[in-house]
């Protein structure tokens, strides 16, 4: 199961938006606000093929960071965290894979998604999606969001052993 500190897992459970940073073609960071989902071990994000440049970046360089920073998007929880890890793009069938893998988790955070799905005909490409699966490897945690204080750094057990 997961190794992320409890307060960070608590943030992931409620976060409506996190900032995913990927490495662009020219090697610079590119950040995308996305809704993060968490199954207790891996973090899942997802992207329509309409907005798929981030997927191309991840396939070129899978190193990513997910920042959880906005208390408004986390039910008022003021804590902050940045999770670094390696991402994998799941895209064998962009029409159905994501429904099987993450629709349940997505629905919990954004129940309105079911209404959008019923209107799939109106915006068919929005529902052609790939899943970004992040294996967390390291984590920085700031209690009360105080980034003027040193973060608590934690690494994944295997990464620590390595």
């Amino acid at each position: 199961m997961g190794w992320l500190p409890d307060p960070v897992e608590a943030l992931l459970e409620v976060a409506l938006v996190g900032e995913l940073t990927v490495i662009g073609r020219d090697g610079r960071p590119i950040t995308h606000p996305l809704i993060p989902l968490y199954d207790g071990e891996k973090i899942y994000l997802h992207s329509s093929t309409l907005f798929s440049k981030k997927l191309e970046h991840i396939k070129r360089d899978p190193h990513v960071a997910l920042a959880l920073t906005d208390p408004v998007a986390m039910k008022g929880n003021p804590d902050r965290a940045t999770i670094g890890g390696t991402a994998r793009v799941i895209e064998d069938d962009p029409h159905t894979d994501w429904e099987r893998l993450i629709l349940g988790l997505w629905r919990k955070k954004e129940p309105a998604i079911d209404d959008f799905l019923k209107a799939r005909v109106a915006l068919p490409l929005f529902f052609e999606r790939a899943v970004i699966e992040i294996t967390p490897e390291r984590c920085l945690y700031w209690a009360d969001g105080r980034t003027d204080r040193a973060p608590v750094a934690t690494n994944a057990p295997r990464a620590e052993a390595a």
Partner: protein
Amino acid sequence: MRSGSVPVHEPTAVDLDRLATYPHVVVSWIDDDGYPTSVATSFETEATAGAVALAAPAELPIPTDRELSVMGSHIRPQPGIGYDERRYLQLWGRATADATFTPTQAWGWDETEVLFFEYSERSVPQSRRYLAALSREKGRTIRPRLSLFWLALRTTRLPFLTATAVPVLLGIAVAASHGAFTWWTALLTLIGGSFAHLAINVTNAIFDTLSGADDANTTPTMFSGGSRVVIYDLLTIRGLTWVALGLFGAAAVIGLLLVAVTGSMTLLWIGVAGIFVGVAYTAPPLKLVYRGLGEFAVALGFGPIMLLGAYVVQTGRLALEPLVVSLTIGILVALILFVNEIPDRRGDAAAGKRTLPVRFSPMAVQTGYLVAAVVALALIAVGVGVGLLPWPTLIALLGLPLAYRVYGGLKVNYDSPYTLMAVMGRNVNLTLAVGGLLLVAYVATLVWSALRP
């Protein structure tokens, strides 16, 4: 280019003013291990200096030897639903040792300025590129999909069939009031007319796609912007062509059957004229809608051709009364096109599709709408006045307030494709309401004739 729009651009003072509205920023860079690192921090913008003073995070020094991303992001949570009011602004640049960040590039999105639907439409080419690359990577074709039902509905623009049902049913009703009615030819007329209408819709989609008119339109709505099935790669032009041919074939079989049953060459010529006008609407060389003649073609097709055709199937002859009714309905259906062209006008202009809203000023279009709607309804009053139409048809004049509401809606929402949707819906309802009221009037006339001693 302002940050309310999507493309990457050189940052301006406007961007820094926008950044200042965010409570914090997320600063990101690529660390020495090759991983992105992000940290939230407070900041102050210095718009005149074109810089951002970042508060230095503890024990996580902001590097000065590499590019940084600085992002402000905002949502408004909607408990039990999700969230809205999405906006973000991302700046790239470098920082100095005192954590002063100077941006050199920016991009962002604010859904109050570029609505999500438009943002999505602008991104369709990216989806196509991505799926094409994925297909190459996987060694098999990966395309977007829709269920057969929804694909058929979207491809044929099935909901627009009301524009056929109204004139066909009215033609049958006028014929019935003249003592001519056969249920199965009436049913075949409705089915055949529907096939012809759907075939023409698909044909128009083919030519609007080939001309680039649909591609140039980044603000389609449920009423406008075409079926987009080729643009979305849900079907190919070849597939659409087969659909159109199948529908034309079905319409032709039913039409020829009705000609054979009625023995009316008039009906044959009406059918030929209908197909000709429908195809010439977008197809070269005539491309009527590209020349500002689309409304005329639609008025002819959904007025005299559909309504008189249905009348001729029942009676075997032409008459003045159904012609007057057909002019009213033809004008109203043409006004559906006229209003639906308003949100498409920029894309249409870019593709050389010189529709009336492309050619005329907003005021001329709005006034033109009101005048045409009043003329359409006045024709009924004139028809009753000269004794051509039964007096109960005057009930159709109840549509006037609705026409005026559409006119009012056009004045307020002319430049907003998405708020215009409600007005476009109201305008469709005007045709349905007037058509329905005329139908009621003819049924009442029939009942009155049956009960009269």
